[in-house]
């Protein structure tokens, strides 16, 4: 029996190795070995880090920059808390709700380095200084710099050892604890990215996410017994000793490592399978009272892996962990390599919003996890493209989204009313989110540079998604899919910049979209195409001299009374210039199609014929989702009262009910 099991085991191992493309294609700049121990009562993680960093190329460097992000939660002077207070109502920012022991920090007890083949460890702790590559940021301590005794050259490695303690904050912005749940992210000294002789090591801002080099992680975690544990990478082994469980997780070709430990959690395992994609083991860590939702969560994750895998590149890792973070912990809805978090609310579980959240966060395994742009500088590259792919996947998997109104809405409460017969494409929801923010900011700028949090969200997520929808509309689904696929394949395990994406568009697009991309991404230009006028009137009777100016050559013709003069005027009411379709419907039902390059401010189409115009539409298929007024895209020649009558009637009924509610008090 043992022999049979052994053979089956070997077969499964070989088979899975064949199907799974273990990522090795990345340029491994960093190699992290971490040992960490969680102390739940003190809310601390004591860690030892050994980091091998290889100079990726360029001029020699002596200064190395590191993120110390737990210091974002250290005190009211941190950049994070100051930015958060800027956008909060007085007394409402999270810092003002914190008790003294709920703050967090990172304490670096020791820091040594070994250079090249030198065996001697050099103490770098005295050189440690809290400053960013651009200088000191007031009292913020989220970036530090250490100075090596001598510069290291391209290709040369340095091995650094850190002893550190991370005190976790009460759960805030993607990290911390809530009761017996610990989510540990951005928790170790993480080296910045050296790129073209410049260090990218942003302080921890309120808005904007992260950036790091690809590399390998091997992490030993020591957690008290009784906790469910999930982490980036693959669990190599676990060992129980003295009331603790020691886990070892490892993963290549990732750029970060996050983990969780929680009580009252259930673990569900499921293997994602698809004929064209490698299998992925899904590990769901779900709070016990949310266990009935496990199938829904897994199904949505599978949908994301399927559509993203088919449209971009297959998910390359062996497993994927989904963490159901506690409600109101500020931890749900975030992505890390091979792990993402969700948050179940009464509101999202009652609709497809839960699925949208899962698809979006899982989607970041592709846009962020593999195609890893600098999120702090160009958030739209991952958030925007991911929001586009999310809406596309949601539509493919779940169809149109039902229209819901929420009554008695409070934090954590609301009674939904689904409006029968009303449903819409996910991209229309993105368009609705974008409208109030139109023109307030530009898309392509650092996350911390937006006018406010709402503007950051709208521009980086929804407006950028609408740029993608517009590109797909203009170029067609097939061409744009090719762009997405090429971009994802070319920049898998790489750090693309906006110009890389634009370059791929240029290579594949049959039309020049430079001006559009510039206006859409780097300006707050408005986009609005409208039908301004639709006319049909009897043609002017033929009168006057025709032919030679000789006596008898003139004629006074009578007009053909059936002949109509038709005129359509379409306008470009914004600065964004795109070619647009114009569709004219005649009264006999016949349709005439035109294309307008959109260059001038307006465009007129005139002709005489026996049939009048019924309506005209510019961009009738709503290909240009950046258009801020989609309602003016189609105009009829004649007005009709039917729709107005219908809604007036419904509205009047509502008003009569309103009056009767007041009569309740009479």
């Amino acid at each position, binding site marked *: 029996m043992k022999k049979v099991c052994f053979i089956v085991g070997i077969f499964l191992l070989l088979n899975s190795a064949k199907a799974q493309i273990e990522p090795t294609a990345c340029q491994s700049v960093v190699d992290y070995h971490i040992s960490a121990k969680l102390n739940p009562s003190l809310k601390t993680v004591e860690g030892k880090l050994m980091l091998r960093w290889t100079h990726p190329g360029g001029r020699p460097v002596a200064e190395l920059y590191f993120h110390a992000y737990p210091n974002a939660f250290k005190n009211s002077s941190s950049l994070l808390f100051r930015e958060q207070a800027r956008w909060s109502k007085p007394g409402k920012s999270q810092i003002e709700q914190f008790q003294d022991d709920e703050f967090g920090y990172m304490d670096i007890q020791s820091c040594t380095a070994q250079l090249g083949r030198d065996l001697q460890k050099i103490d770098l702790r005295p050189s440690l200084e809290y400053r960013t590559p651009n200088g000191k940021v007031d009292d913020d301590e989220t970036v530090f710099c250490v100075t090596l005794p001598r510069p290291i050259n391209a290709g040369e490695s340095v091995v650094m050892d850190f002893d550190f303690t991370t005190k976790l904050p009460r759960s805030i912005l993607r990290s911390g604890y809530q009761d017996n749940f610990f989510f540990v992210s951005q928790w170790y000294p993480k080296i910045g990215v050296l790129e073209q002789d410049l260090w990218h090591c942003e302080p921890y801002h309120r808005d904007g996410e992260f950036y790091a080099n690809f590399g390998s992680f091997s992490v030993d975690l020591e957690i008290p017994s009784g906790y469910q544990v999930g982490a980036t990478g693959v669990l190599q082994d676990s060992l129980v000793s003295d009331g603790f469980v020691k886990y070892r997780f490892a993963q290549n070709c990732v750029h970060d490592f996050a983990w969780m430990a929680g009580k009252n959690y259930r673990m569900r395992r499921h293997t994602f399978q698809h004929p064209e994609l490698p299998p992925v083991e899904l590990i769901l860590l779900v709070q016990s009272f949310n266990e009935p939702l496990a199938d829904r969560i897994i199904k949505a994750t599978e949908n994301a892996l399927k559509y993203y895998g088919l449209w971009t590149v297959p998910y390359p890792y062996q497993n994927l962990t989904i963490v159901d973070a506690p409600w109101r912990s500020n931890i749900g809805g975030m992505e890390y390599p091979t792990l993402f978090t969700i948050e179940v609310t009464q509101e999202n579980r009652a609709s497809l919003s839960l699925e949208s959240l899962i698809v979006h966060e899982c989607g970041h395994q592709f846009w962020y996890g593999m195609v890893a742009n600098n999120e702090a500088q160009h958030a739209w590259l991952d958030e925007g493209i991911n929001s586009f792919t999310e809406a596309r996947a949601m539509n493919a998997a779940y169809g149109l989204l039902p229209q819901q109104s929420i009554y008695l809405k*409070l934090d954590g409460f609301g009674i939904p*009313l689904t409006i029968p017969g009303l449903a819409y494409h996910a991209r229309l929801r993105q368009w609705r989110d974008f409208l109030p923010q139109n023109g307030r900011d530009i898309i392509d700028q650092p996350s911390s540079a937006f006018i406010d949090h709402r503007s950051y969200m709208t521009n980086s997520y929804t407006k950028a998604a609408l740029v993608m929808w517009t590109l797909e509309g203009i170029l067609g689904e097939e061409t744009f899919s090719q762009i997405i696929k090429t971009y994802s394949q070319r920049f898998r395990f790489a750090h693309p910049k906006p110009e890389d994406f634009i370059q791929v568009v240029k290579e594949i697009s049959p039309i020049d979209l430079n001006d559009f991309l510039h206006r859409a991404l780097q300006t707050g230009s408005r986009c609005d195409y409208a039908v301004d006028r639709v006319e049909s009137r009897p043609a002017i009777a033929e009168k006057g001299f025709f032919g030679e100016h000789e006596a008898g050559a003139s004629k006074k013709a009578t007009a053909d009374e059936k002949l109509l003069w038709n005129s359509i005027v379409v306008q470009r009411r914004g600065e964004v210039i795109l070619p647009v379709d114009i569709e004219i419907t005649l009264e006999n039902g016949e349709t005439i199609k035109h294309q307008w390059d959109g260059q001038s401010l307006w465009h007129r189409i005139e002709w005489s014929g026996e049939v009048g115009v019924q309506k005209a539409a510019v961009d009738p298929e709503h290909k240009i989702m950046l258009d801020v007024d989609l309602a003016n895209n189609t105009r009829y020649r004649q007005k009709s*009262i039917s729709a107005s009558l219908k809604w007036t009637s419904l509205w009047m009924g509502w008003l009569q009910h309103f009056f009767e509610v007041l009569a309740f008090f009479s």
Partner: protein
Amino acid sequence: MNIVSALKQGLALNQKNIKIVPLIYAVNFFLALIFAVPFFVGLHQSIGDLGVRNDLLQGFSLEWWSAIELDADGLLVTLRPALASGYGALFDNAQLLLTGGFKSFGWWILAFGVLYLVVSVFLNGGAIALYADEKRTFSSSRFFSSAGYYFHHFVAITATAILLYFILYKVISPVILNSVAGWTALSSPRVVWWMNFAVFLVILVIVLLLNLIMDYAKIILVVEKKNSAWMAIASAAKFAATHLWGTTGLYLLLSILAIVISLAFAGLLTVLHPSDVIVLFIVFSVQQAFIFAKIWMRLNYYTAQLSYYSDAQTNVRKLRKV
């Protein structure tokens, strides 16, 4: 008298004076029409020649509504997809009763609503006086003279009621809801949802109990020919307390009937999708029948509670004689 008999007697009494219902309905209809005309004109100007009119005729247009939400002011902003469902108005009503957010639809609508409230106060006086009249036949002169006679008393009762509701909505409810938010800060979403649901249930009970007392106050004021509205409210509170099961049971029975009728109409309106003129006319007719039924139902509360009160008082007098 048991509550079912009171309900039956009340229905019969309402039937005998059925002319009051169209009178109140007419006020409701024409007051709403004053708004419906400019609403129609504004809407027609906005969508009359746009392609979105087809979407609005078949269902709804998020494209048009999104722009309206941002830019429009006045009546058009009160148009919402929820109105496409027959249940939309019911959910709105329930929300208003539980939160008191009457000004959320704009001051003009609220001002006309208050006007309707004042007119209703006036008409209630006439209606209850007629119901209490021994002759029990409708006479317009007696109706209006009674309405005028009791008006100031009924205004006092309504003003007291509004003050109490104001305290409930603006003081008591926020305190309870904030406390619940504090207590449940670390609870699961489900617990929070049910806690808030329970709070709204409690608020609903308070709203209905207050309404019940004010109903009996008006009845007592007319039947007992009291000269003080506040004395009538005190007597009503005492009566409701001493006949707790009967008064609340009858109120509950009437409310169940009102809910069943409302759900039936709302269901019918949800099934009917007006996309052509004939169906539109049918929907409009059903909608008006719904309003008519609602007014009829509101008057049933008075007639049934009057019957119950009268019978209870007759029994008391008999006992006193004995």
